[in-house]
Structures are given as C-alpha cells and as structure tokens.
C-alpha cells in the first residue's frame, strides 16, 4: 500500500478518517477497493475517470446554477471513487434517518393539526408562526393517511467520535435522488468487477417502494405526474430523469388545471384527471392563488383540490417548517414528547436566540460559531444562505449582531462549526482525504419509512467550511452501502415476473411536451437545411468543384442568403465583381458567429428545445442532439474534423443531423412523440424545398442547367437525377423530382404525403380539434401538388418566369403555414396564465 498518503494527523485535528483507523491501517471495508485501485496500471484510473466524465456529459447530467451568466447548464461533477460504507455503519445510519423521517412527519402532523407541541411549550410557537414557509392555507388540512413526508433527506457528516451528526434535512422537496441514481449507473459501469465483488446494496427496490407507496394513497384513477418548475430549474435534469425512471409524466404548472376540485392534465385529447403529483416545485410556489402571490408558477386551485382530498401531493405542502435550524435545538425534547425516544443521530449544537438565555449564550460563543437566520435551511454558504462565520465579524458587525438579536432574537440561531469527517479521493495514483457530507433518503411506505441503501455523497473541493455546497464546486460520489446478507438485485429497468398488461401506445401526451418535440424537429430540420445551403456556398468559395458548370458562390449567396439577411448586399456585389473577401468573412460569421440569425443560434435553439423535451428522448437521441449542437465534441471520423475548416464542420453537421433524424425514424415507436417530431420535420423540410425550387427553377436564367444542378445538390437528389436522366439537365424532370415525386424523401410531395398520413393519426376530441379541419387542410395542400402537371409548371411567360410554378409554390407554402398554425392552436397551445 505504498501509495496511501499518511493521514494520521487528521484525528488529532478532531476529524474522523473513513479510510484509516487510529493505527493508520486501512479499515476492513475499504481494503478491497484500495488493493484494486493500487493494482491498476498508472493510466487505468485516469482512463476510467475520463470515460465516466464522457458518460456524464453525453447523458446531459447537469446542475444548473441560476445566476451563472455562462449558460444554463453546468456539468454535474462526479468523483468516480465510490464512498464505501460498512454494513454495520449502514444499519446505524438507516435507523437514525428512519427515526428522523418519522419524527419530522409527526411534527408536521401536529403543526398542521392540533399544535400540541406549541401549546405545551415543547417547541416555541415562534418556530412555526415565524417560519416563512408555514403555510396558513394548509392549517387543519390532513393529507391522505396523515403522510406529509413521502420522501425525506438528511445530510450527515461524521464527527470525531465516529458518530454521524445531522447537518441539514429536507422535508419539502428533497433533491439529489436522481443524481444519486445517475451516479450509481455511471460508477457501477466504471468499476463493474469491484461493484459485483463487494456486495453493494442495490437501489431499485427503494424507488419502487417510493413510487408504489405514493400511488397507493390515490383515490380513483388518474395520471401520476412529476411537477417541475421547468427547464430553467437547477435540478431540471433530475426531474426529467426521475420522471422517466419512475414512469411519470413530467409536467409544469400550466400543464395542470383544477376543475371541480380535481386536478387535470392538458393532453392532446383534452383534460385528463391527475390523482398523484410528485412535487418538485417548492411548496410556496405550488398555488399562485392561495400561496405566494408574486408568482404565477404552480397550479391555481391546487390547495382547494388538496382540501377536497382529490389529489395526493408528495410531499404534502408546507413541509419546510421542520427543516429550520432553530428547530434543531428542540428536537431531542420533541422526540421524547412524541415517541419517548432518544435521537439516534444528533444535530449540530444549535442555540436559538429567541430567549434571554439563548441570546447571552450566542454572544458568548459567537466567535467560534456561525450565525444563521433561524429559518434558513438553504445549503451553508450557497447563494441564498444567510450563514456568516462569527470569526469573520468586525467589532462593529459584532455590535450589530448583538443589536439584531436584542430586537429580533427569534429570527437568529448560532450553530457550532463542526469539523467534518474526511473520506478518500484518489488522485494521481494516491489517496488524499477531503471533508465529506452524506445525503441519505428515506421514503414512506405503509409499513414505515425505508431508507435508500446508498445516497449522494459530496466531497469538498478544499478544506474550508464553505466548500460543501454543490454551488461552489464540490464533487459528488456514489455511495456503496455494503450488504450484510445477499444483495437484492431487483431492477426497475427489468420488470419483475408479475404479468403486466400489454399496451401498444401510451395515451399520455401533454400538449407542452408535444409542442417541444414539434419545435425540436423544426429547428433541427431548419438547421440542416441551412447547413446544406451554406455548404454549397462554401464548397464554391473553396473552389474545389467544377463551379464553371453550375453557379458561382456569389450567385448562390444572392439567391439564398441575401433574402434572409444572412449576408449583406455589399458582400454579394463585391463577390460578383470578383472580390470574395467580404463574402468569406460574412459566411464565416454566419457559421461560427453569435448573430441572431446565425447557425450557432439555431443550433442552440435545437439544444434548448431538446432539453425541455429531455424526458421524452432516449439516451441515444439525447447524445445525438448533444453531438450536433456542441462544437467541440470529437467526431466519429476525427480525421475529417482535424482541418476544423468551415467545410469539414458543415460536413460533420450533415452527418450528425442524419444521425439524429435516423434515430427518430428507426428507434421511436409510432406514438404521439414520433408523430409530432415527424410533423415538425416534414413541415419544415417542405417549406425549405419550396424556397429552394423558387430560387433555382421558378425564374429562368442563362445557365439553367447550372441552377438545376445546384438545386439537386442542395436537395441531395443529384444521384437520383443522374440515375434517371444522365447528364441532361432540364427543368421538367427537375421539377418532378423535387416537387412532385412522392418517392423522393427530398421532394415536397413526399413531405405532404407524410403530413397527410400523420394528421390522420391526430386525436379529434376537443372542439378546436374538430373545427380545425386539419385533415382536410393537409389533403388540400397535397392535392395541389398531386394534381399538378409538370409541363404546365415548366411553361415560361414572356418575362422568362414560370407563373404556374410560382403560383403553386405560393399555394403550397401558404397551405403548410396555415396547417402548422391550426395544429398549434388545436393541439399544442398551452394557454398562458396571468394575474387578474
């Protein structure tokens, strides 16, 4: 074990070392991992870390930090070395957390019920009535079976004496469950042998208990949904991930509506009842009518539906009251009063400043404590945290603190600064140790609370007190709780043997989700069409085709780019005169720049709509989106990419775009998801093709064969044309191939035929769906093309225009746009809410 750095000093500093005992020997439950790491070739660990990081990136595991200007999503930081917990330690942790969950639930029952704890003075009434998240609208409302907390989390750290202390708890909307699961997926794949040998407890059974127990509380049939604040929430990845894993619809507030005291989900087919809401939206935002009046998130009327007992909300609203640091000071008494039990895990020593004694005590110890708002449960030193270190205060600030607690002592606590136990990190072939915090989850079941045998460990980036909030760069670890007996290998991904009903489609299709998929397809297709045009121009600028036979770069730019204001007229005229410098620069900007109409903005719209539809995309599809929209992803064919020139980049985008559409075509079942992706893609492609035909074939020019070849090139139909007609470039066959041929996937008619087929599948339930006549509209547009005569379309008038072709294109374009609007109105509109 030569590569274990000596750490004997830590316990002398008052820290517990997870890896080494007092004598400096590796503790038994770490020995296997240590020898396995030690046996690895020098680069092996680094390779595994890189491959795990790649997996995290490609799976889109992110943690959003709201106020980071650099972009929405920050990559989830994972340290692949698992945190190993011995079977006996785990048993102790599990009993302690179970007790806490049970206690927290009992407190909430009392707080929102009889309030005996307050009336008997076990808990000062201040801690409830002063709590900003004590929801008065819920007073006297008993949730089904009296369950307030369906999912609970506690943050634990080891003290010097080896006991676990509770540093924070979450009873309202605990986060981290999805990240814990994703960490497990990645780490167990990174060290499959070790994972198998060690006898690590599996997580799936816990999730099943959680889901089934909540669903079991529901009255009547209905959807089970997961309510998220939306794609901008910091934990949105987790919401999308959990909804998929647990088989729930992912919804936002305005997907839900309350009628007759029941909650309904807006779907393609109208309103459908919701009986269970797994809530990931903070309580006070859950009903903008009765709770926070400054928000329109949430579901107006939800509180009324809860009062009526018509929906299970997990967790029940208002749970934050038990998370306040001030309550920590009273928990031992509460446990005795309610259960006659002693706490199995204590909180960090806390003094509430609401009493004369507390104020004096706080002032006496403030220099070695931290000061917090009594009700502030946000992670220590995170962005919203009120925590300050007493040691950092100037004399003036200290006097200010004394005045603060004299006036409003009830709103302050001081808490001891407790050194956190340290756990190993493996870096550069050696172990080092860092402070570690362990988040453990408990779920309610009819038989009592059960603990997830694992969790989310966070290891500090450095040794400071401030280092452990996820916001400030700590890394997470998978938690390997070792089993005392055989391992339960049940997996939610592999259903148990019980027979389940065969279904051919899910009828759950929330309008918003369909809207996201529709626009994802439209943006992706629009990006591909833009790339195809740009590639034709760039190819000619590079001068490596027989451009004499087709059109020049300038001519192409004039037809396709100037009208869309992608390049300036000056660049166009310069290029016509033989000076391509400005055109080159502007094209480069369109491809790589940040301008509003540029390619990069279009790709980022693809990424954003895909993110919003995250729960409906397979991992492979998500990875294809990631590859398409991230410029620095290595390609499957790295040699092509090495040039990093515009042409190589555009070629790569075409390939990746094909990969994305191919995945949708081949891997998605033909349900509503696929339907709206396909509609979006067909509509956008038909519009692009109309544009292409108009600019190349509708107006005759001197070098008609050149224009035809450009059209065929951009529409990827040159091979077919050559196969059918050799090198005879004439307008009627080109019109036929690009406009009328229902067999060419890049012809307008092909798109329209597909649209007609798709539209026929749309539900016809609501009034707006019936009056929209989408079917008739789609068939009408298709008939325009279907009945057109190719020779009539090719006829030229005196002005050398093709009026019949121009008219048909206008009709088709208009028809498609109207159809897209009708579909939007009848199926995709999620109506916006306002405050009256």
């Amino acid at each position, binding site marked *: 074990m030569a590569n274990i750095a000596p750490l004997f000093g830590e316990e002398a500093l008052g820290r517990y070392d997870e890896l080494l005992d007092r004598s400096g020997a590796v503790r038994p439950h770490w020995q296997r991992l240590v020898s396995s790491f030690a046996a690895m070739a020098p680069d092996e660990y680094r390779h595994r870390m890189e491959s795990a990081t790649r997996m995290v990136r490609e799976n889109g595991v992110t943690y959003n930090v709201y106020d980071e200007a650099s972009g929405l999503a920050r990559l989830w930081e994972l340290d692949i070395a698992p945190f190993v917990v011995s079977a006996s330690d785990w048993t102790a942790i599990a009993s302690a957390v179970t007790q806490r969950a049970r206690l927290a639930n009992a407190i909430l029952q009392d707080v929102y019920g009889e309030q005996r704890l307050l009336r008997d003075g076990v808990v000062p009434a201040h801690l409830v009535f002063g709590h900003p998240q004590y929801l008065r609208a819920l007073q006297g409302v008993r949730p089904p079976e009296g369950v307030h907390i369906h999912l609970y989390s506690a943050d634990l750290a080891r003290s010097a004496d080896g006991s676990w202390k509770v540093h924070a708890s979450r009873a309202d909307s605990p986060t981290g469950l999805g990240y814990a699961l994703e960490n497990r997926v990645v780490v167990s794949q990174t060290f499959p042998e070790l994972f198998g040998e060690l006898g690590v407890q599996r997580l799936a059974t816990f999730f099943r208990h959680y889901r089934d127990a909540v669903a079991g509380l529901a009255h009547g049939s209905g959807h089970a949904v997961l309510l998220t604040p939306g794609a901008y929430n910091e934990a949105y990845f987790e919401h999308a991930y959990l909804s998929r894993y647990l088989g729930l619809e992912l919804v936002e507030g305005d997907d839900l509506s309350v009628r007759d005291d029941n909650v309904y989900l807006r779907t393609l087919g109208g309103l459908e009842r919701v009986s269970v809401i797994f809530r990931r939206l903070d309580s006070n935002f859950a009903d903008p009518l009765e709770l926070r009046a400054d928000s329109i998130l949430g579901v*107006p009327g939800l509180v009324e539906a809860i009062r009526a007992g018509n929906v299970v909300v997990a967790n029940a609203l208002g749970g934050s009251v038990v998370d306040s640091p001030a309550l920590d000071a009273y928990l031992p008494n509460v446990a005795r009063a309610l259960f006659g039990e002693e706490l199995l895990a204590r909180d960090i020593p806390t003094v509430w400043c609401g009493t004369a004694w507390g104020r004096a005590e706080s002032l006496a110890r403030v220099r070695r404590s931290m000061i917090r708002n009594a009700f502030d449960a946000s992670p220590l030193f995170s962005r919203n945290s009120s925590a300050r270190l007493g040691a950092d205060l100037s004399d003036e600030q200290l006097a200010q603190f004394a005045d603060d607690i004299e006036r409003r002592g009830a*709103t302050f606590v001081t808490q001891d600064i407790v050194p956190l136990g340290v756990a190993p990190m493996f870096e550069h072939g050696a172990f080092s140790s860092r402070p570690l915090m362990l988040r453990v989850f408990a779920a309610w079941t009819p038989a009592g609370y059960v603990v997830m045998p694992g969790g989310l460990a966070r290891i500090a980036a450095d040794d400071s007190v401030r280092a452990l909030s996820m916001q400030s760069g700590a890394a997470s670890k998978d938690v390997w709780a070792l089993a005392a007996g055989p391992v339960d290998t049940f997996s939610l991904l592999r259903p148990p043997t019980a027979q389940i009903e065969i279904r051919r489609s899910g009828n759950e299709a929330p309008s918003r989700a369909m809207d996201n998929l529709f626009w994802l397809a439209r943006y992706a297709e629009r990006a591909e069409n833009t790339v195809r045009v740009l590639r034709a121009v760039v190819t000619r600028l590079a001068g490596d085709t027989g451009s004499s036979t087709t059109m020049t770069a300038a001519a192409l730019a004039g037809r396709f780019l100037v009208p869309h204001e992608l390049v300036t007229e000056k660049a166009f005229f310069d290029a016509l005169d033989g000076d391509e410098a400005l055109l080159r620069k502007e094209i480069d900007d369109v491809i790589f720049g940040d301008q509003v109409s540029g390619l990069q903005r279009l790709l980022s719209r693809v990424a954003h709509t895909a993110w919003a539809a995250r729960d409906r995309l397979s991992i492979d599809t998500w990875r294809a989106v990631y590859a398409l929209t991230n410029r620095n992803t290595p390609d499957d064919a790295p040699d092509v990419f090495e040039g990093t020139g515009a042409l190589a980049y555009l070629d790569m985008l075409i390939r990746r775009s094909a990969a994305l559409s191919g995945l949708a075509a081949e891997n998605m079942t033909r349900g509503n998801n696929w339907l709206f992706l396909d509609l979006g893609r067909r509509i956008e492609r038909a519009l692009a093709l109309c544009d292409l035909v108009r600019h190349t074939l509708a107006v005759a020019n001197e070098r008609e064969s050149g224009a035809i070849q450009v059209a065929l090139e951009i529409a990827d139909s040159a091979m077919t044309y050559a196969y059918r007609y050799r090198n005879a470039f004439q307008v009627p066959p080109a019109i036929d191939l690009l406009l009328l041929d229902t067999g060419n996937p890049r012809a307008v008619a092909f798109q329209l035929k597909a649209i007609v087929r798709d539209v026929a599948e749309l539900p016809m339930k609501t009034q707006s769906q019936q009056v929209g006549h989408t079917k008739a509209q789609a068939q009408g547009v298709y008939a325009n093309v279907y009945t057109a005569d190719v020779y009539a379309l090719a006829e030229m008038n005196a002005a050398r225009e093709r009026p019949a072709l121009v008219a048909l294109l206008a009709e088709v374009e208009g028809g498609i746009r109207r159809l897209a609007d009708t579909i939007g109105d009848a199926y995709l509109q999620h109506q916006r809410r306002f405050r*009256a």
Partner: protein
Amino acid sequence: MTKYTVRHRTTYSYESDVAYSRLLAHLVPRSTERQDSLSTSVAVAPKPVTRFERADFFGNTASWFIIEEPHAKLEITAESNVAVTPAPAFAPEASAPWEAVRATFDPPVEPGAFDVLQHTFDTLLTATDPDVVAYARSSFPRGRPLLACILELNSRIHADFTYDAEATDTHTTVKDALELRAGVCQDLAHVGIACVRSMGLAARYVSGYLLTQPPPGRERLIGSDASHAWFSVWIPPFGWVDVDPTNDMLPSDQHITLAWGRDYGDVAPIHGIITGGSEHEVDVAVDVIPS
C-alpha cells in the same frame, strides 16, 4: 354608532377573451369589537360556475369564484351594510414602555397570544433591512410608552412620504417604498408595519374603506375613492390599535374594516388568476354612504 352602506365595484376589461378565471376575494367586512357587519352581497358577472365562502386563517371571510365561460369583461360588485362605533380615546402615557411589550414575546408565550406573536415576523412585502431599522429607531427611545412611539412614527411616515399612485404597484416592497419616500396607502401601511416589526413588536395590515363624503365642515380624506389600507399595532393594555399613516390619524368611525392579515398579500380585495386574456385594465369604484 354610525351605519354605512358600502358599494365596491371592480371591473376588469381584457383585450381578448379570458377562457377561465379563478378569484379569491376578501370583500366581506368582518365584525370587530367596534364594528357590526350587518350584511353583504357580492354580485359577479359573468356568473361563476362555482362560488363559496370560508373563513381564512385570520378569521376573515374569503370568497372564491370560478368562471368558466369566455369573457372579455369581469365585474365584481360587493355591497355591504356595517355599523361602526367610534374608537375610545387612548392615552399614550397609559401604554406600556415598548421594551416591556417586546419582552412579552419571549417564550413562554401563552396559546392565546400566538395570534399576536405571528405578527412580529417579516413577510415578503414587509421584509426589513438595516434601512428600515435606521428609519424606525428614532421613534423608539428607551422607555417611551409604545403608543407614543407609534404616534410619532405615524406622523413621520405621513410627513416623509409623498402620496403618489404612480410611484408603486401592488408588488412594491417596503425597501422600494422607503427609497422612493412615496407610495399609496398600502405602501405606507407596509412601511409602518415593517418599522414596528423591526423593533420586535407586533403589527398587522388592515384593508378597508374610508367615508367618501366627509361630514359638513370636515376635509375629504385621502384614498376615499377606492379601497383603503392602514395598520394596527399590539399595544397593551389597549390591545390592537389602528393607525392610518396616509391621513396621520388613529382611525375611528370613518374607517370601515374589511379584513386583516400580515400584509396586503393575505387580504387583497381580489386575487385572480386568469387563463388567456393577456393585457387588461382594472377600474375600481368605491362609494361609502352613511345611512
């Protein structure tokens, strides 16, 4: 005792049809020690599919209306009959020193006093900060009887703040109003509440009405053409004492109480969430007629 008929009409006009509205209103005057709420009728057009009333946490009557037919205009008219007795004359020197009142909020607090206790804490709209403390402090010299503190604070707010309906809206916080030194009755009440709470004392928000036509020979009060707001402070041995900073006075029988809570958000005359409709205009007309 003075009897009044109050007519309170709120009209929303929307640019396009609203598909669905859900309203939570506090339009039924509560009965208090000095006020009998005799009758109230609330008319809503278009007709709600559902309407019901329930006492809220603070004992006010809250009314819910759900409208499901498309509408471009929504009118809510409440008509109430109330009888109000004048407030007694409170002698400032008879009130307890403010520090002694504050000390009663230390534990143990009797269950009967929980209701008062909850009004010592900040809310979203009345959040305090060092500026609020600095503003409040000069009215609270050591040992001064609480009512004397409050009377002075009330006069200072009245003198320092410009009544300006354009300066603020219903979401304006105390911090904003204090910076602007301007606002409407709601903002002035919030400032007063925040000042009192910042000293560790209890204050609550009161929503109500003012007599619109003053008795002969007396001035028409500010805010009398719409609903009004003031605040109330817990002052032993008197109990809750109403204070109106907009008019620098202690309300008596020209003020009619609708509802009270921790801030405007608890007792807004009408909260509503609409689906569709986009831009809208609101018109509020209040008539208070002695009867």
